[in-house]
């Protein structure tokens, strides 16, 4: 599924680059990626890839090692966003509102008897609790747990995908998505009506998250307006899809930022950037 998104996104970006007069070479990321990059030796790599290797910073790290400028956030930023536990700790420590959480490794249960602490956590977070692997996409291994009896099975499922899991308070409300380009927030997306104050607050939180994680180029920040009316940050996606039907693309359009202009800005900014040593 992620590969299909990558292919659609890649084709769209390639067409835009050609319209802008760039010489675009597409690379299907496989086992010969480094060889291909060395052969093509591009001025800028436009990352239109989704899935683990793009979102955990692996591809960015390779590009940085090879000294190739790229359009996405750095490998370090990707690593911070990809690991949900790390991201949640960063947000909480910085005072960004985010749903309460706890995290445990599989070893904590296997070797330290962490299971005995579960009732305390369950009381603190209160049901329903979302259990998910620390790293991974497409909601794989994620479960909604509404009672203590469901917790062990949910943990077993989440530990299938990662050795560390996140137990997060389930907050209900309206999803709010804010895309940010070069530190500038685009109009938020929400299926409900947002007041001007909510829009301002959502954009402010999105930019704070952008700054906190050190994002570059473009990113998507998922928030929620809780039933109490508070805005809270759920997660930061530093390599969001640019496919036609993606939130990022729709937000750019809503913000009068034509797709070609967005692509051009990202390429120009990448070309000017300094590659980390």
């Amino acid at each position, binding site marked *: 599924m992620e590969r299909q998104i990558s292919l659609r996104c890649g084709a769209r970006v390639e067409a835009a680059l050609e319209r802008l007069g760039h010489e675009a070479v597409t690379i299907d990321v496989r086992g010969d990626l480094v060889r291909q990059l060395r052969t093509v030796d591009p001025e800028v790599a436009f990352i239109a890839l989704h899935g683990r290797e793009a979102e955990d910073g692996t591809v960015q790290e390779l590009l940085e090692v090879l000294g190739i400028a790229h359009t996405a956030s750095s490998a370090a930023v990707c690593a911070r966003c990809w690991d949900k536990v790390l991201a949640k700790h960063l947000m909480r420590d910085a005072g960004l509102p985010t749903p309460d959480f706890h995290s445990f490794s599989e070893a904590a*249960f296997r070797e330290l*008897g962490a*299971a005995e602490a*579960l009732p305390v956590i369950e009381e603190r977070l209160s049901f329903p609790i979302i259990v998910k692997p620390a790293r991974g996409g497409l909601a794989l291994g994620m479960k909604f747990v509404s009672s203590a009896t469901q917790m062990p*099975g949910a*943990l*077993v*499922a989440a530990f299938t995908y990662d050795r560390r899991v996140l137990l997060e308070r389930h907050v209900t409300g309206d999803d709010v998505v804010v895309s940010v380009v070069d530190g500038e927030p685009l109009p938020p997306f929400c299926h409900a009506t947002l007041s001007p104050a909510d829009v301002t607050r959502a954009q402010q939180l999105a930019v704070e998250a952008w700054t906190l994680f050190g994002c570059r180029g473009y990113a998507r920040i998922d928030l929620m307006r809780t039933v109490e009316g508070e805005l809270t940050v759920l997660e930061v996606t530093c390599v969001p899809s640019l496919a036609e039907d993606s939130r990022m693309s729709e937000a750019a359009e809503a913000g009068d930022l034509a797709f070609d202009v967005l692509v051009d800005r990202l390429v120009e900014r990448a070309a000017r950037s300094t590659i980390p040593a």
Partner: protein
Amino acid sequence: MRDLMALTSQPDIISLAGGLPDMSAFPAEVMGKVTAQIAAESSVKALQYGPTEGLEDVRDAIAEVMAAEGMTGIDPQDVLVTSGGQQVIDLVCRTLIDPGDVIIAEAPTYPGAVPCFGSFQADVVQIEMDADGMRIDELEETLDRLAAEGRTPKFIYTIPTFHNPGGVTMSLPRRKRLVEVARERELLILEDNPYGLLRYEGEPLPTLYSLDGGEFVIYLGTFSKILSAGIRVGWAVAPRPVFQKLNIGKQAADLCSSSLSQMFVATYFRSGLWAEQLDVFKELYRRRRDVMLDSLADFFGPEAAWTAPQGGLFLWATLPDYIDTTDLLVRALEENVAFVPGRAAYLDGRGGSSMRLNFSGVAEDDIREGVRRIGKVVHEQVALYGTLTGAAPAVPAAPPVPAIDAGATPGAAANVVPLPRRDSDDGRARGSR
């Protein structure tokens, strides 16, 4: 399923997921001889379109195969040749199903039928099975309930013999009752029978088609498991009004099935070798089934249960309900082994703790190794669940045993606390204090 099959076709993975016959057991020289004969005697016919309902010679061969399963007296004119058995399911849905129509199927059902039923937006009601196949009492209760709602199923889809994925076979009393129910309520049955001739033990049972006489039963057959899956030749035998509609549907779908493939079947059957080849497949798969059953007993542990099929290609294993086999597959793939998660055989989200295992497609050593690897990840999850529920105590990891450099002399090591080598497996982290 398609994504899973693509993933499991990678060479390093032991795939117990597919439903593949082992075509290495079919002699290549026979294939060469048959194709050479087609080229020499009837290349023009083989390379041309054919009639929608199929070539006469193939329909004769089909009548011969059906007779071998006790369905004698089949008129070849009642046979519609299709592009594999899968096309029959598609054509029956295309002919009979409007969005929202009810199809009755077993729980679990053939995973390949699930997306087909879904694409026609059918409302699939799945009936539980036990060791004797579909529970007919539950079927009748369901039919009563549907009737009370003013709904009549368009057909009952069943694989009564060596069920895929269930591995069970419908008993004779249930077969008789199912046919009676269909007659009493004037319901069509789609009898999917790809594996009936692959019986390794026990006495053959009459097909629903033979019990019914072809009045309410649409019969689905295929050469995929008794000759070759790659030639893509299957067939339907249906009551006349349904047959005509299926024929029109097939015209729209693909005009006709491959003439070359049909000629391959017809020429091969004229050689008279098929019964002998069938025995080769049966002996091969029987041995593999036995290896799988032994391996399951050795590696799956007392928490698991599985069916013991008398034939066919699959068995159905069920784990404790806290293990989700869709998630488990991720761990299994890390161990380079694959199976079909149970949910693929349901349209209502059930089957989460079950899996389909195939024993025909891989060699005996690989079956044993594949089951061992799945058993390993199952045991890991069972143990983890035990610590999460308090059923098993948490156990601190054993302290690392410092490695002694094999090149050092005993005397030199005696007065030195040896440090783990930095280039050894995670030695640096474990050695740190």
